[in-house]
């Protein structure tokens, strides 16, 4: 297992009830597996995911899919941005 940090912002922080949590993931998880595991832990987020409303970042970059997650990585889950 490996430890990663997971961040939530705005609406996803409200749904998850936290802005920042630590997660244990199986070694060699892909980004898809990692985010699936994370979302399943927060029932409030599954509806958002199923509507395709969530965006995912790994180490402060948008994920494009297939990334390999490593010990200590910073993952983030949020809804479409609304700055400006």
């Amino acid at each position, binding site marked *: 297992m490996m430890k990663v940090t997971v961040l939530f912002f*705005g609406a996803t922080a*409200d749904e998850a009830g936290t802005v920042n949590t630590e997660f244990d993931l199986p070694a060699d998880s892909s980004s898809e597996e990692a985010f699936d595991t994370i979302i399943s832990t927060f029932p409030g987020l599954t509806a958002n995911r199923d509507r395709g409303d969530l965006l995912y970042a790994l180490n*402060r970059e*948008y994920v494009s899919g297939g990334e390999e997650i490593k010990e200590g990585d910073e993952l*983030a889950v949020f809804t*479409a*941005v*609304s*700055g400006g």
Partner: protein
Amino acid sequence: MDFYELTTEPIDVGENARRIVPQECGATVTLDGYVRRFTNGRETEYLLYDAYEPMAVKEMEKLVAKAKDKFEISNIGIVHRLGRLEIGETSVVISVAAPHRRAAFEACEWLIKELKSKVPIWKKEVYSDGEVWVEGSKQEKD
């Protein structure tokens, strides 16, 4: 000199424009976005902006690099405010200096569009009877 910053302090729009004026340029175009009182007929009391700060700065840095690649411009300055904003206060200011104004207009408009769809910042509208995190759309129009 380019810059891209997040701040919780009020933004000085004029200062932003003047910070990027190089001597070979002729025009600076500035977009000043601020808090509207009414959205879809509903009255906003104030706004809260949240950001994934280190990623937001990284994304702004990428936008600046892309814009300088794409348009014939000299300098770009972007400041986005975070925290609580009252009606009429500036939330974002983007200034682009260029030798010719056409490129400055194009780049400034491109930058605000990209910022609104890519930079991880979220706003919460607070009404007298509730509040809501505004969800953007990846096909942000205006």
